[in-house]
């Protein structure tokens, strides 16, 4: 069947295997090995580009069982679950019990396997690091069919390569996650307005102690308003709502692909201006349910269809602290000049890099831009790549659909180290994706 990532670009013809049990995963892997047929794992398909695309794709959709929830004496807890469990299901389980996931992305609909493979980061990266920092252990099915448990004490290099390794070291079967304690489901949310990029970066620095922080940038503004933005800060509230019930929202859905022109320059312009005004009025503190705070886009199921049938590209870059202001200014200028401003532009401060060879975050700022896919877009992105590389930055593999091998290797200097670890456990490159082929991670 035709398969694609969340950005609906690119797509490829894939045979989809959906095992109902771990036993079947092993059987299928053995059969594929016997035919020397490559495969890649897929979780919830929320990576944007081609990370979970290959001629044979094995999904963890039905492998989503919880294994054990254990409370520790210090008040924390651990959850062991199969890799297909989504963060949404986990939160529904643990929030009413007073626990929370230490790292959350912008959608709850990602699997634990996908969160590990992309080593995802959240609005608290500057304090709490990546998803893998809170993974105690994981169970990996290797190319030779053996099952290996790895963590920081056992098989550490393999553990570190798997976290951020985009499914190329093996199939994550299950993982043990550390949970944090919370008083209730509410988030104390404060908003600040920044009239320029510089102001925004200053606000981030000023509020570095805030647990959660993220800024939305009006991408179409230029001149002295370049980078005007709204900064959202958040922390877990001690207020416990009267109703014990988890206040889950109803979602509306975009049932069909809408024509691409719906999101042309004009509508995006209107959207950005409206959004900006609304944020301006809401500049005080208020309480929000965690779902509204962390996953505003989840309220519209399949919002990715709004970009039309050609799909879209999400371009997420990180620039080191030192060169961030300059690099971001150049990039925002280019985007604003091109008039291809995005529906969403998100800026976030990141903390120090961890020791995983392919994890994306490094100390600095990450900017995320959405672009409707069209032919003229690719040259613009190549220009942005050049600025990025010049400033010592890199792109996030979970979002990437098009960067060149050279851009990748410049941004991820530890790629060779990763390939050595992969070669030791997967000498025949049984685990290969379109992304891996494109970036030279499959030779």
């Amino acid at each position, binding site marked *: 069947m035709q398969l694609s990532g969340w950005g609906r670009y690119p797509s490829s013809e894939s045979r989809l*295997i959906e095992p*109902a*049990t771990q036993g079947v995963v092993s059987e299928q892997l053995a059969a594929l090995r016997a035919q020397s047929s490559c495969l890649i794992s897929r979780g919830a398909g929320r990576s944007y580009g081609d990370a979970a695309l290959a001629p044979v794709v094995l999904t963890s959709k039905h492998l989503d*069982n919880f294994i054990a929830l254990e409370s520790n004496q210090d008040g924390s807890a651990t959850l062991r679950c199969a890799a297909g469990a989504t963060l949404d299901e986990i939160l529904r*389980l643990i929030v009413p019990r007073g626990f929370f996931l230490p790292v959350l992305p912008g959608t709850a609909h990602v699997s634990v396997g996908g969160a590990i493979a992309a080593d995802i980061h959240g609005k608290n990266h500057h304090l709490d690091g990546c998803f893998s920092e809170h993974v105690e252990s994981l169970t990996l099915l290797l190319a030779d069919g053996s099952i290996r448990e790895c963590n920081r004490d056992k098989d550490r290099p393999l553990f570190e390569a798997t976290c951020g390794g985009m499914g190329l070291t093996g199939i994550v079967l299950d993982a043990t996650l550390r949970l944090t304690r919370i008083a209730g489901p509410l988030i104390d949310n404060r908003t600040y307005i920044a009239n320029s990029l510089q102001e925004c970066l200053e606000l981030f620095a000023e509020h570095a102690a805030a647990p959660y922080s993220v800024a939305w940038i009006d991408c179409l503004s230029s001149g002295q308003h370049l980078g005007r933005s709204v900064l959202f800060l958040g922390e877990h509230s001690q207020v416990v709502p009267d109703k014990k019930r988890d206040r889950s929202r109803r979602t509306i859905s975009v049932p069909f692909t809408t024509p691409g022109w719906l999101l042309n320059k004009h509508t995006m312009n209107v959207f950005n201006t409206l959004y900006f005004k609304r944020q301006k009025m809401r500049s005080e503190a208020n309480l929000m349910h965690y779902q509204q705070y962390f996953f505003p886009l989840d309220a519209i199921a399949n919002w990715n269809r709004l970009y039309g049938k050609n799909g879209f590209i999400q371009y997420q870059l990180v620039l080191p602290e030192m060169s961030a202001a300059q690099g971001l200014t150049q990039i925002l200028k280019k985007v604003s000049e091109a008039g291809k401003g995005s529906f969403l532009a998100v800026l976030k401060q990141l903390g120090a890099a961890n020791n995983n060879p392919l994890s994306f975050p490094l100390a600095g700022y990450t900017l995320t831009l959405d672009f409707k896919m069209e032919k003229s877009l690719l040259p613009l992105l190549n220009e942005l790549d050049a600025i990025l590389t010049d400033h010592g930055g890199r792109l996030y593999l979970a979002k990437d659909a098009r960067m060149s091998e050279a851009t990748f290797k410049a941004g991820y200097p530890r790629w060779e180290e990763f390939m050595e670890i992969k070669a030791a456990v997967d000498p025949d490159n049984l685990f290969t994706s379109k992304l891996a082929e494109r970036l030279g991670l499959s030779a």
Partner: protein
Amino acid sequence: MNIVIIGANSAIAKASARLYAGQGHDFVLSGRNAAALSELEADLKVRGAGRIALLPLDILNTHEHSVLVDNIEQACEQIDLVLICHGSLPDQERCESDFELVQQELIINGTSVVSLAGRLANVLKKQQHGTLAVVTSVAGDRGRQPNYVYGAAKSLASTYLQGLRGRLLPYNVHVIDIKPGLVDSPMTAQFDKGPLWASPEQVARKILRAVSKKQHTVYAPGYWRLIMFVVRSIPDFFFKRLKF
């Protein structure tokens, strides 16, 4: 509640059990794959289930059905809900030349359901209490070219339930026929999915609602009631030419 589930490893049963587990109920689970049953047990425990008993069985061993029902009775004092969910979607083309396969499919989707529903109905009748919910299919509403063996077996089960419902009425036992449409589960892994497809969780929510509201025949999702009304209304001379 004491909830008995046959075919507990099926995606739809699993999704239903998970919703019930969150409410703290007790379970007796039967399914073919013992390892998968144990995984489900752990999962339901994490979600808040109370006591859980596992009774693995290949439903094709019909001579063991009575033992299974005895064991179920022993595992719980009173049964509040029985959910029968096992099933299999055969390759229609193979069925055309392989009567052994047809017979096996008729057992899995038809007579085994009758055997287990009938036996468990007698237990509920004795108790004068309980709900029996069986997952059949919209395929049972009319024989269609691509799956009429499956459809025939499912309609056997549905027809049986219609009579059983009346028989049990005086004994405070309620019978529900759940007819899912297209569900994205391991059974349908090889199909391309479109907008009419539902998730096992959506069907599970329908099942819980049907049980609490004592509904009779439930289409899941609800729009299948309308679709199947139309499908049943098409005259034969035209219907025979349709290949869907």
